[in-house]
Protein backbone atom coordinates (compact mmCIF):
# COMPACT_ATOMS: atom_id res chain seq x y z
CA UNK A 1 0.00 0.00 0.00
CA UNK A 2 2.72 2.37 0.91
CA UNK A 3 4.44 1.76 -2.39
CA UNK A 4 1.30 2.59 -4.30
CA UNK A 5 0.94 5.69 -2.14
CA UNK A 6 4.50 6.73 -2.90
CA UNK A 7 4.04 6.01 -6.60
CA UNK A 8 0.98 8.26 -6.77
CA UNK A 9 2.81 10.95 -4.92
CA UNK A 10 5.73 10.67 -7.32
CA UNK A 11 3.34 10.98 -10.24
CA UNK A 12 1.71 14.01 -8.64
CA UNK A 13 5.11 15.55 -7.91
CA UNK A 14 6.21 14.94 -11.46
CA UNK A 15 3.07 16.56 -12.75
CA UNK A 16 3.68 19.51 -10.46
CA UNK A 17 7.25 20.01 -11.73
CA UNK A 18 6.04 19.57 -15.27
CA UNK A 19 3.33 22.17 -14.73
CA UNK A 20 5.92 24.57 -13.27
CA UNK A 21 8.10 24.18 -16.39
CA UNK A 22 5.05 24.70 -18.60
CA UNK A 23 4.13 27.83 -16.68
CA UNK A 24 7.51 29.38 -17.35
CA UNK A 25 7.59 28.42 -21.04
CA UNK A 26 3.89 28.71 -21.97
CA UNK A 27 2.02 30.85 -19.43
CA UNK A 28 -1.13 31.36 -21.48
CA UNK A 29 -1.56 27.66 -21.99
CA UNK A 30 -1.32 27.07 -18.26
CA UNK A 31 -3.80 29.84 -17.52
CA UNK A 32 -6.35 28.37 -19.91
CA UNK A 33 -5.82 24.88 -18.50
CA UNK A 34 -6.22 26.16 -14.93
CA UNK A 35 -9.59 27.64 -15.84
CA UNK A 36 -10.73 24.56 -17.64
CA UNK A 37 -13.78 22.90 -16.08
CA UNK A 38 -12.12 19.57 -16.50
CA UNK A 39 -9.52 20.37 -13.90
CA UNK A 40 -11.70 20.20 -10.78
CA UNK A 41 -13.22 16.97 -12.03
CA UNK A 42 -9.81 15.51 -12.68
CA UNK A 43 -8.69 16.63 -9.29
CA UNK A 44 -11.70 15.08 -7.60
CA UNK A 45 -11.12 11.85 -9.46
CA UNK A 46 -7.53 11.81 -8.38
CA UNK A 47 -8.49 12.51 -4.80
CA UNK A 48 -11.16 9.84 -4.87
CA UNK A 49 -8.72 7.40 -6.31
CA UNK A 50 -6.13 8.30 -3.71
CA UNK A 51 -8.68 7.88 -0.92
CA UNK A 52 -9.76 4.52 -2.19
CA UNK A 53 -6.25 3.26 -2.37
CA UNK A 54 -5.07 4.69 0.90
CA UNK A 55 -6.65 2.92 3.85
CA UNK A 56 -6.58 4.37 7.40
CA UNK A 57 -3.09 3.96 8.53
CA UNK A 58 -2.36 2.19 11.81
CA UNK A 59 -0.65 4.32 14.46
CA UNK A 60 3.10 4.48 14.22
CA UNK A 61 4.80 1.70 16.09
CA UNK A 62 7.36 3.93 17.62
CA UNK A 63 7.80 7.60 18.22
CA UNK A 64 11.28 7.50 16.90
CA UNK A 65 11.32 8.34 13.24
CA UNK A 66 14.45 8.41 11.13
CA UNK A 67 15.61 11.61 9.49
CA UNK A 68 15.14 10.17 6.04
CA UNK A 69 11.57 9.31 6.81
CA UNK A 70 10.95 12.75 8.29
CA UNK A 71 12.33 14.32 5.13
CA UNK A 72 10.19 12.14 2.91
CA UNK A 73 7.17 13.01 4.97
CA UNK A 74 7.95 16.68 4.60
CA UNK A 75 8.08 16.36 0.85
CA UNK A 76 4.96 14.23 0.85
CA UNK A 77 3.11 16.80 2.89
CA UNK A 78 3.45 19.14 -0.03
CA UNK A 79 1.92 16.54 -2.25
CA UNK A 80 -1.20 17.92 -3.87
CA UNK A 81 -2.96 14.61 -3.42
CA UNK A 82 -2.13 14.62 0.21
CA UNK A 83 -3.15 18.22 0.54
CA UNK A 84 -6.30 17.65 -1.47
CA UNK A 85 -7.13 14.56 0.57
CA UNK A 86 -6.69 16.31 3.86
CA UNK A 87 -8.58 19.36 2.83
CA UNK A 88 -11.40 17.33 1.31
CA UNK A 89 -11.56 15.35 4.48
CA UNK A 90 -11.88 18.36 6.68
CA UNK A 91 -14.33 19.92 4.31
CA UNK A 92 -16.45 16.80 4.31
CA UNK A 93 -16.19 16.46 8.07
CA UNK A 94 -17.15 20.06 8.30
CA UNK A 95 -20.17 19.61 6.10
CA UNK A 96 -21.14 16.51 8.01
CA UNK A 97 -20.97 18.42 11.22
CA UNK A 98 -23.11 21.11 9.68
CA UNK A 99 -25.52 18.33 8.78
CA UNK A 100 -25.50 16.98 12.29
CA UNK A 101 -26.15 20.43 13.61
CA UNK A 102 -29.00 20.78 11.12
CA UNK A 103 -30.65 17.61 12.36
CA UNK A 104 -30.33 18.68 15.98
CA UNK A 105 -31.61 22.16 15.15
CA UNK A 106 -34.58 20.73 13.29
CA UNK A 107 -35.39 18.48 16.22
CA UNK A 108 -35.16 21.40 18.63
CA UNK A 109 -37.21 23.69 16.40
CA UNK A 110 -40.09 21.26 16.07
CA UNK A 111 -39.94 20.02 19.67
CA UNK A 112 -39.60 23.41 21.32
CA UNK A 113 -42.32 24.85 19.09
CA UNK A 114 -44.77 22.17 20.21
CA UNK A 115 -43.72 22.12 23.84
CA UNK A 116 -43.52 25.89 24.28
CA UNK A 117 -46.90 26.20 22.61
CA UNK A 118 -48.11 23.70 25.14
CA UNK A 119 -46.61 25.98 27.78
CA UNK A 120 -48.59 28.85 26.22
CA UNK A 121 -45.37 30.85 25.71
CA UNK A 122 -46.07 32.06 29.21
CA UNK A 123 -42.57 33.48 29.46
CA UNK A 124 -41.56 35.68 26.50
CA UNK A 125 -38.17 34.04 26.49
CA UNK A 126 -39.80 30.86 25.23
CA UNK A 127 -39.78 32.28 21.72
CA UNK A 128 -36.01 32.47 21.70
CA UNK A 129 -35.16 28.82 21.03
CA UNK A 130 -37.60 28.80 18.12
CA UNK A 131 -35.82 31.71 16.50
CA UNK A 132 -32.36 30.46 17.30
CA UNK A 133 -32.97 26.90 16.19
CA UNK A 134 -34.58 28.13 12.96
CA UNK A 135 -31.50 30.24 12.23
CA UNK A 136 -29.28 27.33 13.17
CA UNK A 137 -31.19 25.06 10.87
CA UNK A 138 -30.97 27.52 7.99
CA UNK A 139 -27.31 28.20 8.58
CA UNK A 140 -26.52 24.52 8.82
CA UNK A 141 -28.31 23.67 5.60
CA UNK A 142 -26.28 26.38 3.96
CA UNK A 143 -23.18 24.95 5.55
CA UNK A 144 -23.94 21.51 4.20
CA UNK A 145 -24.02 22.91 0.69
CA UNK A 146 -21.03 25.17 1.22
CA UNK A 147 -17.90 23.50 -0.09
CA UNK A 148 -15.57 26.36 0.63
CA UNK A 149 -12.76 25.56 3.01
CA UNK A 150 -13.41 28.58 5.13
CA UNK A 151 -15.35 29.24 8.25
CA UNK A 152 -18.34 31.43 7.71
CA UNK A 153 -18.65 34.30 10.16
CA UNK A 154 -22.43 34.53 10.13
CA UNK A 155 -22.87 30.82 10.56
CA UNK A 156 -20.32 30.80 13.31
CA UNK A 157 -22.18 33.56 15.13
CA UNK A 158 -25.48 31.75 14.80
CA UNK A 159 -23.87 28.66 16.27
CA UNK A 160 -22.52 30.65 19.18
CA UNK A 161 -26.01 32.04 19.77
CA UNK A 162 -27.43 28.52 19.64
CA UNK A 163 -24.99 27.28 22.23
CA UNK A 164 -25.72 30.25 24.47
CA UNK A 165 -29.49 29.81 24.07
CA UNK A 166 -29.15 26.14 24.88
CA UNK A 167 -27.28 26.76 28.09
CA UNK A 168 -29.67 29.53 29.06
CA UNK A 169 -32.57 27.20 28.36
CA UNK A 170 -31.06 24.65 30.68
CA UNK A 171 -31.15 27.22 33.48
CA UNK A 172 -34.73 28.23 32.69
CA UNK A 173 -35.87 24.62 32.66
CA UNK A 174 -34.10 23.82 35.89
CA UNK A 175 -35.79 26.80 37.51
CA UNK A 176 -39.16 25.65 36.17
CA UNK A 177 -38.66 22.24 37.78
CA UNK A 178 -37.31 23.50 41.09
CA UNK A 179 -39.92 26.21 41.69
CA UNK A 180 -42.85 23.77 41.70
CA UNK A 181 -44.06 22.07 44.87
CA UNK A 182 -41.84 19.08 45.37
CA UNK A 183 -38.82 20.72 43.76
CA UNK A 184 -36.56 18.18 42.08
CA UNK A 185 -39.11 15.39 42.44
CA UNK A 186 -39.81 12.62 39.97
CA UNK A 187 -43.21 14.11 39.16
CA UNK A 188 -41.68 17.47 38.27
CA UNK A 189 -38.90 15.88 36.26
CA UNK A 190 -41.55 13.98 34.32
CA UNK A 191 -44.03 16.76 33.71
CA UNK A 192 -42.34 20.14 34.15
CA UNK A 193 -39.91 21.58 31.59
CA UNK A 194 -37.61 18.77 30.34
CA UNK A 195 -34.12 19.38 31.71
CA UNK A 196 -32.22 17.80 28.86
CA UNK A 197 -34.07 19.31 25.92
CA UNK A 198 -32.19 22.65 25.70
CA UNK A 199 -28.92 20.72 25.61
CA UNK A 200 -29.84 19.57 22.13
CA UNK A 201 -29.71 23.19 21.01
CA UNK A 202 -26.45 23.75 22.85
CA UNK A 203 -25.01 20.72 21.10
CA UNK A 204 -26.22 21.97 17.74
CA UNK A 205 -24.32 25.14 18.44
CA UNK A 206 -21.17 23.45 19.66
CA UNK A 207 -21.03 20.98 16.81
CA UNK A 208 -21.70 23.76 14.35
CA UNK A 209 -18.80 25.72 15.77
CA UNK A 210 -16.77 22.58 15.37
CA UNK A 211 -17.87 22.39 11.75
CA UNK A 212 -16.59 25.87 11.10
CA UNK A 213 -13.28 25.26 12.90
CA UNK A 214 -12.72 22.08 11.02
CA UNK A 215 -13.08 23.50 7.57
CA UNK A 216 -11.04 26.60 8.30
CA UNK A 217 -7.57 25.09 8.51
CA UNK A 218 -4.32 26.27 6.88
CA UNK A 219 -2.72 23.73 4.52
CA UNK A 220 -0.57 21.01 6.06
CA UNK A 221 -2.18 21.51 9.44
CA UNK A 222 -4.72 19.45 11.29
CA UNK A 223 -7.79 21.20 12.63
CA UNK A 224 -7.74 21.78 16.37
CA UNK A 225 -10.38 22.85 18.84
CA UNK A 226 -9.20 24.50 22.04
CA UNK A 227 -5.76 23.10 21.41
CA UNK A 228 -7.00 19.52 21.10
CA UNK A 229 -7.10 17.65 17.83
CA UNK A 230 -10.53 18.40 16.43
CA UNK A 231 -11.53 14.78 15.96
CA UNK A 232 -10.98 13.93 19.58
CA UNK A 233 -12.64 17.09 20.83
CA UNK A 234 -15.70 16.55 18.69
CA UNK A 235 -15.85 12.92 19.67
CA UNK A 236 -15.96 13.98 23.30
CA UNK A 237 -18.79 16.42 22.57
CA UNK A 238 -20.74 13.88 20.54
CA UNK A 239 -20.25 11.13 23.11
CA UNK A 240 -21.25 13.45 25.93
CA UNK A 241 -24.25 14.59 23.94
CA UNK A 242 -25.27 11.01 23.33
CA UNK A 243 -25.07 10.15 27.01
CA UNK A 244 -27.12 13.22 27.85
CA UNK A 245 -29.77 12.39 25.29
CA UNK A 246 -29.87 8.85 26.61
CA UNK A 247 -30.57 10.31 30.05
CA UNK A 248 -33.47 12.36 28.70
CA UNK A 249 -34.93 9.39 26.82
CA UNK A 250 -34.45 7.19 29.87
CA UNK A 251 -36.34 9.65 32.06
CA UNK A 252 -39.29 9.91 29.69
CA UNK A 253 -39.39 6.23 28.85
CA UNK A 254 -39.31 5.55 32.59
CA UNK A 255 -42.30 7.87 32.87
CA UNK A 256 -43.90 5.67 30.21
CA UNK A 257 -43.09 2.62 32.35
CA UNK A 258 -41.19 1.07 29.43
CA UNK A 259 -44.58 -0.27 28.47
CA UNK A 260 -43.33 -1.20 24.98
CA UNK A 261 -40.20 -3.39 24.82
CA UNK A 262 -38.75 -1.19 22.07
CA UNK A 263 -38.44 1.60 24.59
CA UNK A 264 -35.26 0.04 25.94
CA UNK A 265 -33.47 0.56 22.62
CA UNK A 266 -32.66 4.27 23.06
CA UNK A 267 -31.21 3.60 26.48
CA UNK A 268 -29.08 0.61 25.46
CA UNK A 269 -27.80 1.19 21.92
CA UNK A 270 -26.60 4.83 22.05
CA UNK A 271 -24.61 4.38 25.26
CA UNK A 272 -22.60 1.62 23.59
CA UNK A 273 -22.01 3.84 20.58
CA UNK A 274 -20.99 6.70 22.83
CA UNK A 275 -18.65 4.51 24.83
CA UNK A 276 -17.01 3.18 21.68
CA UNK A 277 -16.68 6.69 20.32
CA UNK A 278 -14.99 7.71 23.53
CA UNK A 279 -12.66 4.74 23.31
CA UNK A 280 -11.81 5.63 19.72
CA UNK A 281 -10.99 9.14 20.81
CA UNK A 282 -8.67 7.98 23.57
CA UNK A 283 -7.09 4.98 21.93
CA UNK A 284 -7.93 4.77 18.27
CA UNK A 285 -7.32 1.52 16.45
CA UNK A 286 -8.87 -0.15 13.46
CA UNK A 287 -10.99 -2.52 15.53
CA UNK A 288 -12.45 0.11 17.84
CA UNK A 289 -13.04 2.52 15.01
CA UNK A 290 -14.92 -0.05 12.97
CA UNK A 291 -17.11 -1.04 15.90
CA UNK A 292 -17.74 2.57 16.78
CA UNK A 293 -18.66 3.32 13.19
CA UNK A 294 -21.25 0.54 13.06
CA UNK A 295 -22.78 1.37 16.42
CA UNK A 296 -23.03 5.00 15.45
CA UNK A 297 -24.77 4.08 12.23
CA UNK A 298 -27.14 1.89 14.21
CA UNK A 299 -27.81 4.80 16.55
CA UNK A 300 -28.49 7.10 13.61
CA UNK A 301 -31.01 4.60 12.25
CA UNK A 302 -32.55 4.28 15.68
CA UNK A 303 -33.15 7.99 15.69
CA UNK A 304 -35.23 7.68 12.57
CA UNK A 305 -36.93 4.50 13.75
CA UNK A 306 -37.86 6.29 16.96
CA UNK A 307 -39.95 8.74 14.99
CA UNK A 308 -41.85 5.79 13.59
CA UNK A 309 -42.47 4.41 17.08
CA UNK A 310 -43.60 7.80 18.32
CA UNK A 311 -45.98 8.11 15.38
CA UNK A 312 -47.41 4.77 16.42
CA UNK A 313 -47.65 6.07 19.99
CA UNK A 314 -49.67 9.10 18.92
CA UNK A 315 -51.94 6.98 16.77
CA UNK A 316 -52.80 4.62 19.62
CA UNK A 317 -53.64 7.39 22.10
CA UNK A 318 -57.35 8.04 22.61
CA UNK A 319 -58.78 9.51 19.44
CA UNK A 320 -55.58 8.85 17.53
CA UNK A 321 -54.67 11.39 14.84
CA UNK A 322 -58.15 12.85 14.83
CA UNK A 323 -57.39 14.04 18.35
CA UNK A 324 -54.08 15.50 17.15
CA UNK A 325 -54.65 18.77 19.00
CA UNK A 326 -54.22 16.82 22.22
CA UNK A 327 -52.16 13.81 21.23
CA UNK A 328 -49.35 15.61 19.41
CA UNK A 329 -48.90 17.76 22.52
CA UNK A 330 -49.36 15.03 25.12
CA UNK A 331 -48.17 12.02 23.22
CA UNK A 332 -44.61 10.82 22.68
CA UNK A 333 -42.65 13.75 21.17
CA UNK A 334 -42.36 13.17 17.43
CA UNK A 335 -39.28 15.33 16.72
CA UNK A 336 -37.21 14.15 19.68
CA UNK A 337 -35.59 10.93 18.37
CA UNK A 338 -33.73 12.55 15.43
CA UNK A 339 -31.42 14.22 17.91
CA UNK A 340 -29.85 10.78 18.33
CA UNK A 341 -29.25 10.70 14.58
CA UNK A 342 -27.72 14.15 14.63
CA UNK A 343 -25.32 13.22 17.37
CA UNK A 344 -24.48 9.92 15.73
CA UNK A 345 -23.58 11.72 12.50
CA UNK A 346 -21.39 14.09 14.45
CA UNK A 347 -19.76 11.07 16.00
CA UNK A 348 -19.12 9.58 12.57
CA UNK A 349 -17.59 12.84 11.38
CA UNK A 350 -15.41 12.98 14.47
CA UNK A 351 -14.39 9.42 13.84
CA UNK A 352 -13.14 10.14 10.34
CA UNK A 353 -11.22 13.13 11.64
CA UNK A 354 -9.64 10.93 14.28
CA UNK A 355 -8.67 8.42 11.65
CA UNK A 356 -7.13 11.16 9.60
CA UNK A 357 -5.30 12.52 12.59
CA UNK A 358 -3.74 9.16 13.33
CA UNK A 359 -2.90 8.59 9.71
CA UNK A 360 0.39 10.51 10.07
Amino acid sequence: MRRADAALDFAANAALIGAAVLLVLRPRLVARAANSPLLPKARDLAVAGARALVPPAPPPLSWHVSTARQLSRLIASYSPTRIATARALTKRAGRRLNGSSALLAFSVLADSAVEHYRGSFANRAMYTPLVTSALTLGGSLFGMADARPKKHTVRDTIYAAAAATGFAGLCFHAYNVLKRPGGASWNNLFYAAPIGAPMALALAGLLGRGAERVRDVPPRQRPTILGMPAGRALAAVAAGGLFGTVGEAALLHFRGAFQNPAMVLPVTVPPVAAALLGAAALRPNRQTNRLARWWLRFTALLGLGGVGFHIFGVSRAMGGWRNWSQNVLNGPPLPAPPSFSGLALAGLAALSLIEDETDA
Partner: protein
Amino acid sequence: MPDRYPGYDVLQKRHSPSWNDQTRAVIDRRMAIDPDHHAFFSDAEWPTMRAICDRIVPQPPNRLHPAPVAAMVDQKLHDNSGDGYRDARLPPLREAWRRALAAIDAEATSRYGRHFHEIGALLQDDLLKAIQNGEVDDKAWGDMPAKIFFQKRLLHDVVSAYYAHPAAWNEIGFGGPASPRGYVRMNFDRRDPWEAAEARPGREDKARAENARVG
Protein backbone atom coordinates in the same frame (compact mmCIF):
# COMPACT_ATOMS: atom_id res chain seq x y z
CA MET B 1 -73.76 41.41 35.35
CA PRO B 2 -71.45 41.24 32.34
CA ASP B 3 -70.81 37.88 30.76
CA ARG B 4 -67.76 36.23 32.23
CA TYR B 5 -67.25 34.07 29.16
CA PRO B 6 -68.62 36.24 26.33
CA GLY B 7 -69.49 34.39 23.18
CA TYR B 8 -68.54 30.97 24.57
CA ASP B 9 -70.74 28.09 23.42
CA VAL B 10 -69.98 24.43 24.10
CA LEU B 11 -72.18 23.54 21.14
CA GLN B 12 -69.49 24.95 18.86
CA LYS B 13 -67.53 21.85 19.73
CA ARG B 14 -70.27 19.46 18.73
CA HIS B 15 -68.34 18.17 15.72
CA SER B 16 -64.92 18.44 17.30
CA PRO B 17 -63.04 15.55 18.92
CA SER B 18 -64.48 16.75 22.23
CA TRP B 19 -67.83 15.14 21.51
CA ASN B 20 -68.61 11.54 20.60
CA ASP B 21 -71.70 10.00 19.00
CA GLN B 22 -73.34 9.04 22.26
CA THR B 23 -72.87 12.54 23.65
CA ARG B 24 -74.31 14.16 20.56
CA ALA B 25 -77.39 11.94 20.76
CA VAL B 26 -77.90 12.74 24.45
CA ILE B 27 -77.40 16.50 24.16
CA ASP B 28 -79.50 16.71 20.99
CA ARG B 29 -82.40 15.20 22.90
CA ARG B 30 -81.91 17.66 25.71
CA MET B 31 -81.75 20.66 23.38
CA ALA B 32 -84.97 19.47 21.73
CA ILE B 33 -87.02 19.52 24.93
CA ASP B 34 -90.05 21.73 24.54
CA PRO B 35 -89.93 24.18 27.47
CA ASP B 36 -93.71 24.35 27.58
CA HIS B 37 -94.40 20.64 27.51
CA HIS B 38 -95.53 19.04 30.75
CA ALA B 39 -96.56 15.39 31.04
CA PHE B 40 -96.55 15.09 34.83
CA PHE B 41 -97.56 18.49 36.22
CA SER B 42 -101.16 19.45 35.69
CA ASP B 43 -102.18 22.67 33.96
CA ALA B 44 -102.86 24.16 37.38
CA GLU B 45 -99.47 23.11 38.80
CA TRP B 46 -97.46 24.13 35.76
CA PRO B 47 -97.37 27.92 36.25
CA THR B 48 -96.33 27.42 39.87
CA MET B 49 -93.52 25.12 38.79
CA ARG B 50 -92.36 27.54 36.08
CA ALA B 51 -92.33 30.38 38.55
CA ILE B 52 -90.35 28.36 41.11
CA CYS B 53 -87.73 27.46 38.51
CA ASP B 54 -87.45 31.09 37.43
CA ARG B 55 -86.67 32.11 40.98
CA ILE B 56 -84.35 29.27 41.92
CA VAL B 57 -82.21 29.47 38.77
CA PRO B 58 -82.98 32.82 37.10
CA GLN B 59 -81.82 33.06 33.51
CA PRO B 60 -81.06 36.26 31.55
CA PRO B 61 -84.17 37.33 29.63
CA ASN B 62 -82.23 37.75 26.38
CA ARG B 63 -80.78 34.25 26.37
CA LEU B 64 -81.21 32.67 22.92
CA HIS B 65 -81.66 29.07 24.05
CA PRO B 66 -82.66 29.12 27.72
CA ALA B 67 -82.55 25.88 29.65
CA PRO B 68 -86.05 24.32 29.90
CA VAL B 69 -85.64 23.66 33.63
CA ALA B 70 -89.28 23.07 34.52
CA ALA B 71 -89.76 20.74 31.57
CA MET B 72 -86.66 18.77 32.58
CA VAL B 73 -87.94 18.32 36.13
CA ASP B 74 -91.33 17.40 34.72
CA GLN B 75 -89.65 14.71 32.63
CA LYS B 76 -87.86 13.33 35.70
CA LEU B 77 -91.15 13.09 37.55
CA HIS B 78 -92.94 11.63 34.57
CA ASP B 79 -90.27 8.92 34.31
CA ASN B 80 -90.25 8.65 38.10
CA SER B 81 -86.47 8.39 37.98
CA GLY B 82 -85.21 8.55 41.51
CA ASP B 83 -81.71 9.17 42.81
CA GLY B 84 -81.49 5.88 44.67
CA TYR B 85 -82.34 7.14 48.13
CA ARG B 86 -85.12 8.99 49.86
CA ASP B 87 -84.99 10.77 53.19
CA ALA B 88 -87.40 8.91 55.47
CA ARG B 89 -89.13 12.14 56.33
CA LEU B 90 -90.18 12.70 52.73
CA PRO B 91 -92.85 10.88 50.76
CA PRO B 92 -91.85 9.33 47.40
CA LEU B 93 -90.71 11.64 44.63
CA ARG B 94 -93.95 12.32 42.78
CA GLU B 95 -96.09 12.68 45.85
CA ALA B 96 -93.56 15.02 47.44
CA TRP B 97 -93.73 17.40 44.50
CA ARG B 98 -97.50 17.32 44.16
CA ARG B 99 -97.94 18.03 47.79
CA ALA B 100 -95.33 20.77 47.79
CA LEU B 101 -96.79 22.60 44.79
CA ALA B 102 -100.21 22.55 46.37
CA ALA B 103 -98.74 23.75 49.65
CA ILE B 104 -96.72 26.54 48.05
CA ASP B 105 -99.79 27.84 46.26
CA ALA B 106 -101.77 27.56 49.49
CA GLU B 107 -99.09 29.60 51.30
CA ALA B 108 -99.19 32.31 48.65
CA THR B 109 -102.95 32.45 48.76
CA SER B 110 -103.12 32.67 52.53
CA ARG B 111 -100.41 35.37 52.67
CA TYR B 112 -101.18 37.49 49.64
CA GLY B 113 -104.54 36.29 48.33
CA ARG B 114 -103.10 35.31 44.94
CA HIS B 115 -101.45 32.27 43.36
CA PHE B 116 -97.72 31.85 43.66
CA HIS B 117 -97.06 32.68 40.01
CA GLU B 118 -99.03 35.94 40.35
CA ILE B 119 -97.32 37.52 43.36
CA GLY B 120 -94.21 38.87 41.67
CA ALA B 121 -90.52 37.99 42.08
CA LEU B 122 -89.84 39.74 45.40
CA LEU B 123 -92.69 38.07 47.24
CA GLN B 124 -91.94 34.76 45.61
CA ASP B 125 -88.37 34.94 46.92
CA ASP B 126 -89.66 35.83 50.38
CA LEU B 127 -91.91 32.82 50.41
CA LEU B 128 -89.21 30.50 49.15
CA LYS B 129 -86.85 31.77 51.85
CA ALA B 130 -89.49 31.08 54.43
CA ILE B 131 -89.85 27.54 53.15
CA GLN B 132 -86.08 27.10 53.21
CA ASN B 133 -86.06 28.15 56.86
CA GLY B 134 -89.04 25.99 57.72
CA GLU B 135 -91.14 29.03 58.66
CA VAL B 136 -94.32 27.83 56.97
CA ASP B 137 -97.17 25.93 58.53
CA ASP B 138 -99.99 25.48 56.01
CA LYS B 139 -101.76 22.19 56.61
CA ALA B 140 -101.26 21.35 52.93
CA TRP B 141 -97.70 20.31 53.80
CA GLY B 142 -99.07 17.51 55.91
CA ASP B 143 -96.33 15.56 57.67
CA MET B 144 -93.74 16.54 55.07
CA PRO B 145 -91.22 18.97 56.61
CA ALA B 146 -91.09 21.93 54.22
CA LYS B 147 -87.47 22.66 55.08
CA ILE B 148 -86.35 19.15 54.16
CA PHE B 149 -88.41 19.18 50.99
CA PHE B 150 -86.83 22.48 49.95
CA GLN B 151 -83.28 21.33 50.56
CA LYS B 152 -83.38 17.73 49.41
CA ARG B 153 -86.01 17.76 46.70
CA LEU B 154 -86.70 21.22 45.36
CA LEU B 155 -83.16 22.57 45.26
CA HIS B 156 -81.75 19.20 44.30
CA ASP B 157 -84.08 18.60 41.35
CA VAL B 158 -84.31 22.13 39.99
CA VAL B 159 -80.66 23.11 40.31
CA SER B 160 -79.35 19.82 38.93
CA ALA B 161 -81.65 20.18 35.92
CA TYR B 162 -80.32 23.65 35.15
CA TYR B 163 -76.66 22.75 35.44
CA ALA B 164 -77.19 19.72 33.22
CA HIS B 165 -77.95 22.06 30.31
CA PRO B 166 -75.42 23.57 27.86
CA ALA B 167 -76.76 27.06 28.59
CA ALA B 168 -75.54 26.73 32.17
CA TRP B 169 -72.22 25.22 31.06
CA ASN B 170 -71.62 28.27 28.88
CA GLU B 171 -72.45 30.57 31.76
CA ILE B 172 -69.92 28.99 34.11
CA GLY B 173 -67.22 28.42 31.49
CA PHE B 174 -67.25 24.65 31.84
CA GLY B 175 -65.35 22.74 29.14
CA GLY B 176 -68.40 20.62 28.42
CA PRO B 177 -68.30 17.18 26.84
CA ALA B 178 -64.80 15.79 26.55
CA SER B 179 -64.36 12.50 24.75
CA PRO B 180 -62.14 11.46 23.01
CA ARG B 181 -60.42 14.82 23.44
CA GLY B 182 -59.74 15.71 27.06
CA TYR B 183 -57.42 18.42 28.28
CA VAL B 184 -53.74 19.19 27.85
CA ARG B 185 -52.97 22.23 30.00
CA MET B 186 -53.87 21.57 33.61
CA ASN B 187 -51.80 24.16 35.46
CA PHE B 188 -53.00 27.44 36.99
CA ASP B 189 -54.28 30.08 34.58
CA ARG B 190 -53.91 27.87 31.56
CA ARG B 191 -56.62 27.00 29.10
CA ASP B 192 -56.65 24.79 26.06
CA PRO B 193 -57.83 26.53 22.86
CA TRP B 194 -61.10 24.61 23.10
CA GLU B 195 -61.92 25.87 26.57
CA ALA B 196 -63.79 29.01 27.57
CA ALA B 197 -61.76 32.22 27.69
CA GLU B 198 -62.50 34.35 30.72
CA ALA B 199 -63.06 38.06 30.16
CA ARG B 200 -60.77 40.06 32.37
CA PRO B 201 -62.16 43.49 33.25
CA GLY B 202 -61.72 45.71 30.22
CA ARG B 203 -60.65 42.83 28.00
CA GLU B 204 -64.06 41.43 27.05
CA ASP B 205 -63.35 41.77 23.34
CA LYS B 206 -60.22 39.69 23.57
CA ALA B 207 -62.11 36.92 25.37
CA ARG B 208 -64.95 37.11 22.87
CA ALA B 209 -62.52 36.73 19.98
CA GLU B 210 -60.89 33.71 21.65
CA ASN B 211 -64.25 32.12 22.37
CA ALA B 212 -65.25 32.55 18.74
CA ARG B 213 -62.30 30.31 17.87
CA VAL B 214 -63.33 27.54 20.26
CA GLY B 215 -64.02 24.33 18.39
